[in-house]
């Protein structure tokens, strides 16, 4: 486990959280390099399918970060994301994926320190949980 380097996929909204992460970079605030950031226009754009696909393809943890409630560039995309992700969290547990492997949080464009703290919090959570090793549905050899 000592050499476990978690893979964490983070979907960041263009208007707040990505700016926040950018600012963290500008201020040289360190966070774990294994967090792979994907910029999306809105946290409401994050289809639960993306999250499941990330897990299936080897992510040990997935984060969705958006604007604070009330601050959404598209008015309530983040509120839709909230409802989707709460339901998704409930469902992944049924597939044996710990709820803690997923995180939804709000980070504004100015909150570079909160971004760093959230990223570090997620990293330590995943380090504690260990690798997901989700073989999922092992496809057997199909004979054509």
């Amino acid at each position, binding site marked *: 486990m000592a050499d476990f380097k978690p893979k964490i996929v983070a979907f960041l909204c263009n208007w707040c959280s990505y700016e926040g992460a950018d600012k963290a970079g500008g201020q040289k605030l360190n966070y774990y390099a294994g967090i792979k950031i994907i910029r999306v226009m809105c946290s409401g754009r994050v289809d*639960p399918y993306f*999250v499941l696909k990330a897990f299936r393809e080897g992510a040990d943890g997935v984060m969705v970060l958006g604007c604070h409630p009330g601050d959404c560039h598209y008015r309530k995309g983040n509120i839709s994301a909230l409802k989707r*992700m709460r339901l998704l969290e409930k469902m992944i547990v049924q597939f044996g994926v710990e709820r803690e492997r997923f995180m939804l949080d709000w980070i504004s464009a100015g909150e570079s320190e909160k971004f760093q703290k959230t990223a570090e919090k997620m990293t330590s959570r995943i380090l504690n949980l260990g690798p997901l090793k989700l073989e999922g549905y092992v496809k057997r050899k199909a004979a054509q």
Partner: protein
Amino acid sequence: MTKPKIAISWNSSCGGCDESIVDIEDKILDIAAKVEFVLWPCAMDFKYDHVRALPDGDITVSLINGGIQNSHQEEIARLIRKKSKTVVAFGACAWLGGVPSLINLKNKEELFKSSYLESISVENPRKTLPAIKSKVDNCTLTLPEIYDTLYKLDDIIGVDYYLPGCPPTADLITDLFLKLIEGGLPEKGAVLAPARSLCISCPRNETKPDNFEIDEIKRIHEIIADPEKCFLVQNLLCMGPSTRDGCGCSCIKGNMPCTGCFGPADKSDQGAKMIGTLGSILKGSTESEADRVIDGIADPAGTFYRYSTAASMLGRKRKEDR
């Protein structure tokens, strides 16, 4: 001209798919006159050795229903694939795993415990469980091995077409047979139903307002459902938005919400799409408000993947001890 040879086989399924073929009524006689059946365990007396004796690729088309959950089913599926030109995954189970693939949310041990030890209708004082080999009076008896995962058919063998439905409707089956005999099937790999959401052909679609919110999720027995209004507007979970069209809305016409047997409308994930839909229409703007409504969905995986657990993105419960 020799008649096209047709094989029909079953795996982890309930027999409803075979039944649905008979349900095309008198048309089955027209079809039977034009084709030659070489295997149909549910309805006709052929032995697997008959199939083994055929040359490879001799069967024009095989309709296989049910997912694969044991070694016997796998062997027969592989045999039929070898002997067939075209294989159709017939029904939700063969295409997506179907209802039996809900077992993928449990493990084999839990399955055995529930089915052979704890079920109230089972009396098993010696706590006998299915074993691949067991000794009885100096004889060794063998049984097929039960797998701990239910596989959809195309995880085991190559599949040319997919016919959705639990079971497929009479119209779709008749259409399939016609196209098999007279030609006109689409490109291989196709799902033989329209690639669009069921809501498009739903007679209640017009009654859905542009904006509405589900305040509290109800179950069908808790209210008297309006026979014309969109189920979602009535706070009932209807899988229509994330389910493929083509069934003729038979459940909806019977005043029952869609449970999703026609599978996902495209190549994505039925459950993920349904969660996406619900995110937009559930009421609540804070975590606790959202959770209050979400609490009304007791079993999200079982509801959203009722017919497609084996084909879902996560596929089965994570195995802990590896």
